């Protein structure tokens, strides 16, 4: 390695970035899930899905942006560890699917004036995809420990 990553100079930069990463996903996954639960018919029934989407989309987007940028910085701290890690690779695949799904099928479904009959499937799929992203993220360190440390 020719250039030392300044992030690795301080033992606190990684955990602080992780905090920002977590706040980012509370914003994004948290607000996305509210619309998903509405699509599933659970909670926030005084509002229609389009109303909730209108209320939350900006916070979801802010969260996703914060999450991606802090995530890239976290990745940069030790790319050699992340790149071959199966949990990391799983996370990246489901993350790409989750974002793609979010801004295509899910947005179309949640914007519909009349909830389509498949709304529950869309809400459930979105929740499952984002849940898989979180699980993948947590498992990175544990898979790393299980596969490589010993």
């Amino acid at each position, binding site marked *: 390695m020719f250039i030392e990553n300044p992030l690795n100079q301080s033992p606190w930069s990684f955990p602080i970035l992780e905090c920002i990463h977590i*706040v980012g996903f509370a*914003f994004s996954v*948290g*607000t996305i*899930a509210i619309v998903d639960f509405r699509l599933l018919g*659970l909670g926030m029934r005084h*509002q229609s899905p389009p109303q909730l989407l209108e209320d939350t989309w900006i916070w979801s987007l802010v969260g996703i942006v914060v999450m991606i940028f802090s995530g890239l910085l976290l990745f940069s701290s030790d790319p050699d560890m992340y790149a071959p890690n199966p949990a990391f690779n799983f996370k990246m695949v489901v993350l790409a699917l989750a974002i793609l799904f979010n801004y295509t099928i899910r947005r179309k479904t949640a914007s519909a004036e009349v909830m389509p009959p498949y709304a529950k499937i869309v809400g459930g799929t979105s929740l499952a995809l984002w849940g898989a992203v*979180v699980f993948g993220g*947590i*498992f990175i360190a544990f898979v790393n420990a299980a596969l490589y440390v010993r």
Partner: protein
Amino acid sequence: MILALAQWIQATVFFRDLRESWYVYPVVMSTHLLGIALFGGMVLLTNLRLLGLAMTGRSVSDVIGQFRVAKRVGLILIATCGILMLGSKAEEYYYNILVKVKLTLLLLMFVHGWYFRRSVYYNTEEIDRAPRIPTRAKVAASLSLLIWTGIACAGRGIGYIDPPLSKLHAQLWPAPANSTVTPK
């Protein structure tokens, strides 16, 4: 006494198995975090609504009222996972300063909820009738955001405090590289 209790808890078969399985602990942790995402999102929106920053087209009563049950379910889910994690490494966490910080902040959050219960969180109809959101509600919302963020950050930091290996009686998994402790 608390130390003895912590040692006893983590020595039970349930928590020993939880600690020694390579995947149960991360599954519990992931569920904890997923709960934080869902619960955190609702806390955020509730407080941002009180600050007049989000969901301004909906009444405060509507937002707080509709999130109330879901937030409780979320909190129970997070707390259950948290207790499972605490119990599995109770002795190590007994020495961890950020565990103490986190538990203190959680206690503070309960005081916060109790203190603002009547004037803010169960007083939403009056807040809706007021020409503008009362300062008291904004203070409650800001404090809530601040304390919850502190709780999340303290929680994230727990794993970064090195355990005092010479004092521990449980085998950690995976064993830290500098570990000299053998299971007892």
